[in-house]
């Protein structure tokens, strides 16, 4: 019940913040509403027990992107408060694109058979925030050895709550012990995400070097000119 209340609060804040970003014309106010919206998305991730994802959302989007946005506005603004005025045509085009994206999302969400997918998830306890379920699951840890399947699934569900860091780290290194142990290697080894991880790392390095190259002070050329004039 409390979880649902929190979910609706943060969902309203997310959507309301997003609408406010579009509706305001002042860039810094947009940044403020963006903070509200993205922070609420992080809170939704925490509610779903995706702790690492929520922390990454806070660090990258709220702490990184928005800070850089405001920093850029401060350094480049000519007037006191930068505003972006949209013409009616732009509003219509933007609205149409947004509406089409919404329709695509709604139709794709509607086409998924959620009943079949939720069966594949480990059974989650009724209310994961009560300590009782966790304690019981720990008490049943001894029963797991006795072969009780219910205890096994309960334990798996409890261990899954927010404890995804190790699995994430291993899968970035190309190991998927959760999948490989479960399926017993019948379908071959699950590959993990080693290659995408490396590609993204190299990509970021390239971006960093490129930014440093573009931003470097071009003093050497000036000094060479001076030498040639002398």
């Amino acid at each position, binding site marked *: 019940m409390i979880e649902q209340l929190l979910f609706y609060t943060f969902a309203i804040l997310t959507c309301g913040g997003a609408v406010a970003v579009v509706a305001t014309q002042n860039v810094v106010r947009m940044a403020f509403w963006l903070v509200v919206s993205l922070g609420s998305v992080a809170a939704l991730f925490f509610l779903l027990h995706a*702790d690492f994802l929520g*922390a990454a959302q806070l660090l990258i989007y709220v702490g990184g992107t928005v800070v850089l946005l405001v920093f850029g506005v*401060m350094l480049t603004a000519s007037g006191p408060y930068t505003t972006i005025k949209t013409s009616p045509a732009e509003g219509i085009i933007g609205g149409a694109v947004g509406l089409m994206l919404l329709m695509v999302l709604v139709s794709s969400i509607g086409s998924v058979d959620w009943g079949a997918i939720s069966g594949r998830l480990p059974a989650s306890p009724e209310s*994961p925030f009560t300590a009782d379920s966790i304690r019981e699951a720990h008490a049943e840890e001894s029963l797991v050895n006795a072969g009780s399947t219910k205890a096994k699934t309960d334990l798996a569900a409890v261990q899954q709550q*927010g404890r995804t860091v190790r699995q994430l780290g291993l899968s970035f290194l190309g190991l998927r012990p959760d999948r490989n142990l479960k399926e017993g290697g019948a379908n071959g080894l699950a590959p993990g995400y080693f290659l995408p991880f490396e590609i993204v790392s190299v990509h970021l390095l390239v971006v960093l070097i490129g930014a440093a190259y573009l931003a470097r002070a071009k003093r050497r050329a000036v000094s060479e000119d001076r030498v040639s004039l002398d």
Partner: protein
Amino acid sequence: MHGLFAALTLEDFIARTISSLTKIPADSDTLLLTAFLAAAFTHAGLLLGLFGGLPVFYIWLERKVAGRIQDRLGPTRVGGGFGWLQTIADGIKLIQKEDLVPKEADALVFRMAPYLATIASFAAFMVLPISDGWIAVAAECGAFLILALMSLEVLGIILAGYSSGSKWALFGAMREAAQMVSYEIPMAICALIPLMIAGSLNFQVIGRMQSGGFWNWFILHDPFTFLAFFCYFTTATASVKRAPFDLAEAESELVAGFHTEYSGFRWSIFFLAEYSSMFAVSAVAAILFLGGWHDGLGIDSVLDSMFRGTGTGIIEGFSLGSYVANVFGAVVLITKACLLVFVQIWVRWTLPRLRIDQVMTTCLKYLVPISCFLFLAAVLWPLTLVTMFSRPVIAGPALGERALSHQTTTSIDASERLGAAR
């Protein structure tokens, strides 16, 4: 969210007490909800008390230390000879002030920015363990989460400076943004070194690995973590914009920097956020490098064994020994953090402020390469030891063995407690 938890939660205790007093069955929904809300408000109140109480002490300490360093007495009148109540008097004065918004300011952002900074600073307290198992949110990725939360405070400051409509505030905010964006990098790399040694992002695990004598603390793990502690502390001082890195509010150049236009309550919660963040970064330093809630002399284990078994009869699943050890651990951790905050205050009143180009040079040309080198060396250190002496540490059992033995003993304890509870 529940990585590790106490044997008996407050929620559970309240539910059982109410059910035994009122004869309501212990598994009724209303009772569980009441117990949950009561426990949640108690915990939130305790955290808020810590969040509000520590700055009161630190502001008094700041005045007192500043006075002593400048050969003065500091506050002496309010609340006896030591001026204990000076901060409270200041707070009452500040709340009475008029809440001004300048005509040039962007009113919405100007009003909201102090709350943004304060919320970010308070959120960091949620994932900060005060003692073994005493943590509001025992997240598996606690260390990562606290770094993310502490990096949000800068946003409130930048927005405050920008929306003030004053050139002093704008300059302060720009300096703060440039400084914070740069200093986050060496700070994260330095924090990564003990995390890498522990092999975990969970503060509980990191703290437990440093149990026993002070030679188990990560600062003494190898020479590079020893240096990394000082590197981390420097960047942490810069990240909470304390002198010599307090360019955002450089009084001699920028009037008061980003909070030039603020007054009254909004001004005071900026300071609440600043002083609480000082505690937060110091407590993180204490947990990552200085043994967390372990005193390093074995007093906590003596306390635990002295009271072991007593108190289980009074409340089910409650052990006086572990409770006393936890209270002692909380005192130890807060003392360590307060000592580090004292060093920050000491540095502020004895070192001159750097120029902005010196601040950036210190970070980009010195701290980033130093932290990268320390990280690399700390990675290679156990490998070198293994190849030369065929053991990963110089003396004592390896970290993994220590953590394992501790884990098995605690799980035995827990199962014993459960057995007793049934």
